[in-house]
């Protein structure tokens, strides 16, 4: 087996017995999961269930207590992963005193992607009309989308998105999901968190979290079948009660 095949045999993300403590409180008491390549995996659970902490650990910006996190076969946070993994934080993390284009130009130069890609991602997140507007003056939803545009810039192999479609109107939300599918079809592993259940049905795979534990995982259809329910919301309740 050559190294290229060897690399492809690794899942996008592999987490084993991960323990994370923040501010003296155990947030993740030891969870394990896999995120496949070429799939959109939804990380669902109520606010405070540890989704963001798990995502931070996968991106390698979280101090972890024990356990292992591998991304594309390498330890999370390795410098070789930085160009290959993109992360959207829940709170928009771009420069409020620059325009949308100026922000993207800066991050595009860091990632060394061609300038044409800037126009593409601006169109993708529906900010064509606001490209020359100061980020500070955007609405909350537009601000988040500008931050999302940065995450989409570099054609990442692993895309970690923390609540990317909050405050997004339904039409644009469908567009964004289409672009997540397109990125996954290109072979990337896409991990999307949400605390709203109506996003769940859009995912290929689901990971349901509650109080730092994974209570179930599988495709939406599998979870419905396993719980004999019609709606994912009911499936979640049934799985949470059983856990």
């Amino acid at each position, binding site marked *: 087996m050559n190294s290229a095949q060897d690399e492809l045999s690794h899942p996008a993300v592999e987490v084993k017995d991960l323990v994370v403590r923040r501010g003296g409180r155990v947030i993740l008491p030891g969870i394990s999961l896999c995120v496949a390549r070429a799939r959109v995996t939804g990380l669902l659970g109520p606010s405070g269930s540890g989704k963001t902490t798990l995502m931070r650990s996968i991106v*390698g*910006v979280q*101090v972890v207590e024990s356990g292992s996190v591998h991304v594309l076969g390498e330890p999370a946070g390795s410098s070789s992963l930085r160009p290959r993994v993109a*992360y959207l934080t829940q*709170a928009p993390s771009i420069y409020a005193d620059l325009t949308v284009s100026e922000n993207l130009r*800066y*991050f595009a*130069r*860091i990632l060394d992607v061609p300038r044409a890609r800037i126009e593409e991602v601006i169109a993708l997140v529906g900010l064509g009309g606001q490209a020359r507007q100061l980020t500070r003056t955007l609405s909350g939803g537009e601000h988040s989308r500008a931050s999302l545009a940065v995450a989409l810039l570099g054609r990442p192999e692993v895309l970690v998105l923390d609540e990317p479609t909050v405050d997004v109107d339904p039409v644009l939300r469908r567009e964004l999901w289409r672009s997540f599918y397109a990125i996954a079809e290109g072979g990337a592993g896409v991990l999307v968190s949400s605390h709203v259940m109506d996003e769940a049905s859009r995912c290929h795979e689901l990971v349901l979290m509650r109080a730092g534990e994974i209570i179930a995982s599988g495709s939406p259809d599998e979870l419905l079948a396993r719980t004999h329910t019609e709606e994912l919301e009911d499936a979640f309740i049934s799985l949470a009660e059983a856990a």
Partner: protein
Amino acid sequence: MSARVTLATTARVLGQLRRDRRTLALVFLVAPALVTLFKFIFQYQSSAFERIGAPLIGLFPLVMMFLITSIAMLRERTTGTLERLMSLPLAKLDLLVGYALAFALLAAVQGAITGTIGFALLGITTLGPAWAVVLLAIANALLGMALGLFFSAFARTEFQAVQFMPAVLLPQILLSGLLLPRGAMPRALQIVADALPVTYAYDALAKITANDTGTWLWLDIVIVVGAVVLALVLGATTLRRRTA
């Protein structure tokens, strides 16, 4: 470290400053205004003003850049942009040197404006070359930036960050010999002053003013540059890829 990323960072920081006209106006106008104020305060003590005039021009960027860097880095931390940058293919040095280049440019402009007003209009004299004062002003801006970067790591809020200026810089300026020659201070304070970088920044400026361009001047400059590098290295250790 990559020149592309470093220069992109410089361009980004300058872009942010360009949009903040009021800060630029304050940076460029407050220093000459204060030097002018000193000139009139010392109206009847012109020999004292001759001693401190040129060093004042060279020391202002220290304070300005300390404050600007503290707030800029604190913003990077609190708005999540630092976390984003740390997850991208950007070396810590790209960020630090990128900031340093942008602020050095700002300091050069500030030093040139203050120097022009001071030397041409206020009659401040230096026996050494005036351009050397501006060069030292840039070195002091970098010292202020490096110290600001390091101390901003200990601030959680902007209120705390600005308090580090009187806590960290003001005692150094008071002890440097600018207000009162160090020889006139108690021995214990002289020893403390000898351990502080601003002392050497002031000494270098005082020597240019007196055209005392011997080995000791170069030693002062080497110590200031060494302090910049040390503070930048310590500052780099406060930029963590992983946080709790």
